[in-house]
């Protein structure tokens, strides 16, 4: 007869929660993971103090270029010294407030357009109004304001203007081209296809070259268009081709039954597109459109090559024009890179938020 013998209790399970548990499962799970953790930690320990010293301890925050040359660390004073030149570029110094007001106006309009409360029928009218005010104030020549030629517009205001305007203008073109690529009429379909493939096949810089070198030749005599407008047109046509492909992706995802049902109800082609297809398709492609906007925002840096000085160009001009500060270009570049990063990163976060909003209807 066997006697009762209790078996030993099982050991408690490894902690899966709390920071110790997290470290165990994420940093020291097995020997490979631990090795990776240790290696990365060592590299970090080797580099971090150096970087910390360079960026903070030895850095020069205030002072002239002599102080910077004497120091071992980063020269953040250059950002302070050249701040206005980097941000506003060649725009006349005493008129900077105008560029500031205009840009904040445009930015708040863009931000407002991103929130649900403003998705109303009067939003386009508000855009037109703000743009008229923008150009009046920025260009001057009215109400006693000094006239500022468009080739003096530069820096961050120009970047924001080019990116947002080209995006807004490209949208209707892109929508028509996307519909055209899916239309049943062979001639229209092939025209749209040729346009999209042609633009997507060439780099933006060649389109910009075309806008700045070739455009004057294409226009009738005595018909001169401002370089800013030409470049804007170039970027718009370029963006529209990419955007058309994004929208086409959304159109393709609409089940054919939707269109057939609309036809059964007696809706015309445009009614079908406006009331049935586009609302569903556009909601689906919002994240794609946001990506498009981010890349347009980054692409505006290319206009520096055709001598319009947006953020990158203004920074280059600010740094290269002053021999005293030329040695500290890295800090200037890092500052500009940070500005771009803040803009692009917040846009991509917004795109993720809107993606979750759009997907709400599909989640249960």
């Amino acid at each position, binding site marked *: 007869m066997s006697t009762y013998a209790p078996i030993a209790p099982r050991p408690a399970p490894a902690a899966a929660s709390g920071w110790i548990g*997290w470290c165990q499962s*994420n*940093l020291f*799970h*097995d020997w*490979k*993971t631990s090795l*990776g*953790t240790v290696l*990365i*930690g060592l590299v970090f320990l080797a580099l971090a103090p150096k970087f910390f010293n360079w960026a903070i301890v030895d850095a020069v925050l205030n002072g002239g270029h002599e102080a910077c040359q004497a120091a071992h660390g980063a020269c953040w004073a250059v950002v302070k010294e050249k701040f206005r030149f980097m941000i506003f570029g060649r725009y006349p110094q005493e008129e900077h407030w105008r560029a500031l007001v205009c840009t904040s106006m445009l930015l708040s309009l863009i931000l407002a357009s991103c929130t649900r409360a403003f998705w109303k029928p009067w939003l386009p009218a508000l855009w037109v109004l703000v743009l008229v005010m923008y150009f009046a104030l920025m260009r001057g020549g009215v109400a006693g304001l000094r006239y500022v030629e468009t080739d003096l517009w530069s820096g961050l205001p120009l970047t924001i203007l080019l990116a947002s305007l080209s995006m807004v203008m490209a949208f209707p073109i892109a929508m028509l081209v996307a519909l055209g690529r899916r239309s*049943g*009429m*062979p*001639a*229209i379909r092939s*025209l749209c296809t040729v346009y999209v493939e*042609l633009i*997507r*096949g*060439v*780099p*933006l*810089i*060649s389109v910009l*070259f*075309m806008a700045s*070198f*070739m455009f*004057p*030749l*294409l*226009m*009738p*005599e005595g018909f001169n268009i401002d370089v800013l407008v030409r470049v804007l047109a170039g970027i718009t046509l370029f963006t529209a081709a990419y955007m058309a492909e994004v929208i086409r992706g959304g159109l393709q995802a609409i089940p054919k039954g939707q269109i057939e049902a609309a036809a059964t109800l007696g809706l015309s082609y445009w009614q079908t597109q406006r009331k049935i297809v586009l609302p569903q398709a556009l909601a689906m492609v919002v994240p794609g459109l946001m990506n498009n906007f*981010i890349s347009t925002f*980054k*692409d505006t*840096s*290319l206009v*520096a*090559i055709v001598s319009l000085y947006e953020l*990158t160009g203004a920074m*280059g001009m600010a740094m290269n024009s002053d021999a005293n500060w030329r040695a500290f*270009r*890295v800090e200037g*570049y890092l500052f*500009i*890179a940070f500005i*771009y*990063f803040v803009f*692009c*990163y917040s846009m*991509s976060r917004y795109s993720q938020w809107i993606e979750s909003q759009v997907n709400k209807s599909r989640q249960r």
Partner: protein
Amino acid sequence: MSKPPSHPPSKRWSWRSQAFRSLVYQVLAVAVIALLVLFLAHNTATNMRQRGIQSGFDFLLGTAGFDIGESLFTFDSGESYLQAYLVGVTNTLRVAVLGIVLTTILGTLIGVGRFSRNALVRGLCRMYVEAFRNIPILLQLLMWYLIFTEFLPAMAEAWEVGPFFLSKGGLNFPIPVWANGHVWAAWGLLLGVGAAVAWRKHAWSKFIATGVPHGMFWMPLGIFLACGIAGWLLGGAPTETNFPIRGEFSVENGGSLTPEFLALLIGLTMYTAAFVAEVVRSGIQAVPQGQAEAASALGLSQSHSMRLVQLPQALRVIIPPITNQYLNLTKNSSLAVAIGYPDVVSIANTAINQTGRAVECIALIMLVYLSTSLATSVLMNWYNARSEIKER
């Protein structure tokens, strides 16, 4: 008495007929576009005549009169514009092909790294992607170029790692001295490709017949390399190598890459790799977990499950967007003009400034990029069609 029902009138030429309307729309669209093109062409012709601008591609045969910093074959300023263009095209292709290879490797590593068990690796990969894709490529190129031209030591004090030298003058590295034996080795490798493909076919049919996989990967690779080595030995096994040496003011001999080329290559690779990493990540995420579970239930090993089940399905998702990234890299290589690498755009830019033939030069740029883009998409579409789901 009722009349027999009459047929509705023929609507062929009526505005109510959809066919007729669409015909009208198409004719209108084509006409508008044709008129626009005619108008622009007419303006261009008039403007050119008035400003005394010559047109035509005959300038291509004229003397270029400028030097090019680097080229795969020798070029001097006495040669024609056509030659200069060829140099530009080869320079573009060189940086694009190398960049595509490197970006694929780096991007795949980072994309896979986002699934690592190690939180530090995951975090670093995420940081890399966010940092590099949110800063314009032009700014990144300028920064790399600045690093190469300002922070590296002068050539006389070049950093030395083994036979490699890194300095403001670029990278110097050993290259084998060209000999006839290398031609033999190349022929050997070519033969090796054929032999390896033949072996792989044989092994595959055996696998289908018996179900035993045997020498599917290492054997073809071995055959390929063995043929190459055999060719090299047959050619007399040339081993002479040109090593770079430190001279008085600069590093001499050996092969070299200019700082412009390196800045462009590194900048393009790092930027595009961030996008490729995202593509790879979403591709892997798109394969349902059940596929891996089903594979392991069938008794497939981890690596077989990855190679035969998961990867082929992930590739199907990955290929179209990765093609786009390759094309983007090629197109972004046109930014070389900003840092002075003589690619096709910067040479065309010089040619525009010298000859004033803007239309022709821009047309040539577009031709080069369009044909590369089309060639790449044809190739990738072919591969995509191969890896597509075969439906009825």
